[in-house]
């Protein structure tokens, strides 16, 4: 690495002579990294800068996904054998069809909606709003799980175990959902939902407690707890919690009184969980930024030494942070069981807990950002199903796009290099986590 030589380039000189086409990428990158904090920018410009990186990361992620779609398309390869122009045209066609199918799958057609509303037929309206609302349904568990990881980041712990906590939440919620009978809905439903939070919280508490008491790193422990949770639910679903009349590993269906109510008729699946998710996001935001507890949590997370000096118990905050993070992830599991599936099956989660890491980073660990990022991922997921039906492109491409977004967001310097943006002022970027060795 030739950092040493290049970092000696005076900053002013680099800024005064912007000839991007003559500089090589490595040089630009170093400039981006070493450039000092910008002068006192107005607030809106700083805000713009802080959302620009996520937006560009999303854009780049979609571009990379498009490249993979092109590279794996037989018709493109065939067209390139005819002529380069035909190949380029076909590439554009393939990507455009794929992404427009994705878009239609995510949001529906505006024309259909207008037609449906003017006809006044509730069935048609439901059909027309179905794609959009299903995106919201898909975003709901992402919000809970994303909040879980984000809260962990704020508390200085890396909760990579949201997936396992989600399973525990689902187990608890499903158990309360089907085993308690004869309760009125306004008691049963909250209890079942909170049971999910308790299950997840318990699963988050263990690694938090281990970290506080023994210093064992939470990343390893939460990974281990994930797999323990998978085995546990596997056992429960083939044993004690198995539906008596079924050959498949599925729990009994929950009582109707425990289900989260739906807002529209079939096929629209939008349920109360989405509203709860928004409320919880607001609650987390209030807790983190408006209360003394939140202040303690954030201080312990960003600067444990200062927190200890101020008389806070860092160990306590670590335990609290992991427990709350677990509870939030548990709500995601409870939400899926009570709102969407109405039973617990082994494959109910499509890796929400892992995608949540990307969401928390994309949302800059702020609850509002998490909600936005979750909506994006939710619409990507729900739209991909339509894309698969229409164009035959497997919906796994969404995971690839998500991975790219995660890379670009985690390495803002790369993104900034590509677009030659200026680095935001120091302190705007959240200190994500302390590293493996705890340093």
């Amino acid at each position, binding site marked *: *690495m030739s950092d*040493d030589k290049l*970092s000696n380039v005076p900053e002013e000189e680099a800024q005064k002579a912007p000839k991007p086409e003559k500089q090589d990428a490595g040089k630009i990158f170093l400039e981006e990294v070493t450039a000092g904090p910008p002068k006192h920018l107005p607030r809106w410009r700083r805000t713009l800068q802080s959302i620009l990186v996520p937006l560009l990361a999303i854009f780049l992620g979609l571009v990379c996904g498009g490249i*993979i779609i092109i590279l*794996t398309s037989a018709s493109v390869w065939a067209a390139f054998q005819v002529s380069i122009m035909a190949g380029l045209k076909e590439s554009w066609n393939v990507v455009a069809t794929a992404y427009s199918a994705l878009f239609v799958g995510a949001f529906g057609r505006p024309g259909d909606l207008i037609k449906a509303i003017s006809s006044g037929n509730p069935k048609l309206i439901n059909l027309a709003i179905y794609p959009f609302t299903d995106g919201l349904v898909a975003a709901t568990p992402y919000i809970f799980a994303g909040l879980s990881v984000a809260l962990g980041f704020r508390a*200085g712990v890396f909760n*990579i175990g949201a997936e396992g906590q989600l399973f525990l939440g689902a187990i608890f919620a499903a158990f309360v959902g089907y085993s308690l009978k004869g309760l009125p809905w306004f008691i049963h439903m909250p209890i079942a939902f909170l049971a999910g939070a308790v299950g997840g919280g318990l699963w988050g508490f263990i690694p938090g407690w*281990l970290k*506080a008491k*023994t*210093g*064992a790193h939470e*990343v*390893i*422990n939460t*990974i*281990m*707890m*994930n*797999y*323990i949770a*998978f*085995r546990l639910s*596997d*056992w429960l679903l*083939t*044993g004690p919690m198995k539906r008596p009349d079924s050959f498949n590993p599925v729990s009994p269906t929950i009582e109707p009184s425990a289900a989260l109510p739906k807002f529209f008729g079939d096929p629209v699946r939008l349920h109360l969980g989405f509203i709860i998710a928004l409320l919880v996001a607001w609650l987390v935001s209030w807790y983190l930024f408006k209360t003394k507890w939140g202040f303690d949590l954030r201080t312990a997370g960003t600067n*444990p*030494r200062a927190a*200890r000096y101020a008389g806070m118990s860092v160990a306590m905050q670590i335990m609290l942070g992991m427990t709350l993070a677990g509870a939030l992830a548990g709500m995601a599991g409870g939400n899926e069981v009570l709102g969407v599936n109405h039973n617990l099956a082994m494959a109910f989660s499509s*890796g929400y807990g*892992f*995608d949540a*890491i*990307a969401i928390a*980073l994309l949302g800059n660990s702020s609850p509002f950002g998490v909600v936005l990022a979750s909506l994006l991922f939710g619409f990507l997921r729900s739209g991909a199903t339509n894309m698969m039906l229409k164009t*035959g*492109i*497997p919906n*796994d*491409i969404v*995971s*690839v*796009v*998500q*991975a*790219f977004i*995660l*890379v670009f967001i*985690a*390495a803002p*310097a*790369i993104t900034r290099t590509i677009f030659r943006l200026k680095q935001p002022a120091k302190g705007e970027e959240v200190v*994500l986590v*302390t*590293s*493996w*060795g*705890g*340093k």
Partner: protein
Amino acid sequence: MAATTSTFHKEVEMVKPTRQRVMGILFILAGVAIWFLFIRGVAPGTLTKFGMTPGGMQATIPDMILPSLPTLYFLSAMCIALGAAQLIRKGGFRKSTNIVLGAVAGMFIFGFLTYGAAGKSLNLAGLLNVSLSKAVPLTLGALSGILSERAGVVNIAIEGMMLSAAMTSCMAASITDNLWIGVLVGVLTGALYGVVHGVLSIKYKVNQIISGTAINIFSTGITSYISAKFLQHFESLNQSGTFPAYPVPVLSKIPFIGPIFFNHNMYVYAMYIFLVVLTVALFKTKWGLRLRSVGEHPKAADTLGINVFKTRYMAVILGAMMAGFAGSYFTLGSVGRFDEVMTAGRGFIALAAMIFGNWMPFGAFGAGILFGFTDAVASKLAILQLHIPSQFLLMAPYIVTMIVLAGVVGRSQMPAADGTPYEKEGD
């Protein structure tokens, strides 16, 4: 967090006498557990028959037939005696405490098998043979982790690297009809991911766990994508075949041990070689000393003129190549075709094996065998008609890793600078 962690370390290390007592009590508990769990479930006069040659081979030694109850009494008494000795003797077994712990664990497992197979027969040699096969990807994955973590770069992307390498090696072997080319492509796939992980975490200083997570998500996505788009439609892309078992000429004739350790395919022998080579290279050569110094104290290493960045790149890429090799085992060494998410979390068990083995190659091998053994026993539970859910046995690797990490029965020592990106100080 630095201060907390180190004080906790100190606390745990200071309370040595407590640890001795905990160990002693643990040994006695193992003995009592054998008594209560196993002895009371066995009728007097039953015999346990252990097969001493794996299935499908010419028997060289007769089966071992043990009277179930006396064996269990003996094991229980031995455990309690060892525990008592540990408690009474000043300082217990001192440095050999861990060896005694291993012996007690072994006796407990043997007791469990004796109880499980009471009145029936169990092919012990076959079980161990299968355990070793199952230990291969875990051990190789752990070696991959050791290489990169000894140089201070955490790699939780072993899972993703193995998964992608499993697919590419299978496809390459199917297309070229040559298994060795498959292995090569698998290793290169690993190397490619290693470059990505290295560039992200060393050059761009992206948090190493995030970089690893991104690779895992990407790998799951891209392999499922390619599998759904191509492999399921063109079967000819997904028929690699497997490496045949090759009994080592003289060694495989050793009674009992020979068939277990020396009648496998190429991967097992490669694993032995890698274990020895890596142990020597890491702990006996200048190269290894440099690599470890970069993982323990990069600044000191830098002062002495070692290129920290270069060393870390090399370690990460070599480790990723190892993960690629481990990944090719899933297709070329085991089933001969690729299925979506076929690694099924083995990359994370490999991570656990690495921690359990204290970042040492042979330690990881031991852990790999133990985890492979639990896996093998879990699939035998139904045959033995034991009413223990196999899932609990499959949980065991994760739980013991957490216990080891917590320092209850012995603390594992991770490289000091593991996971910390190195910042060259500006001059």
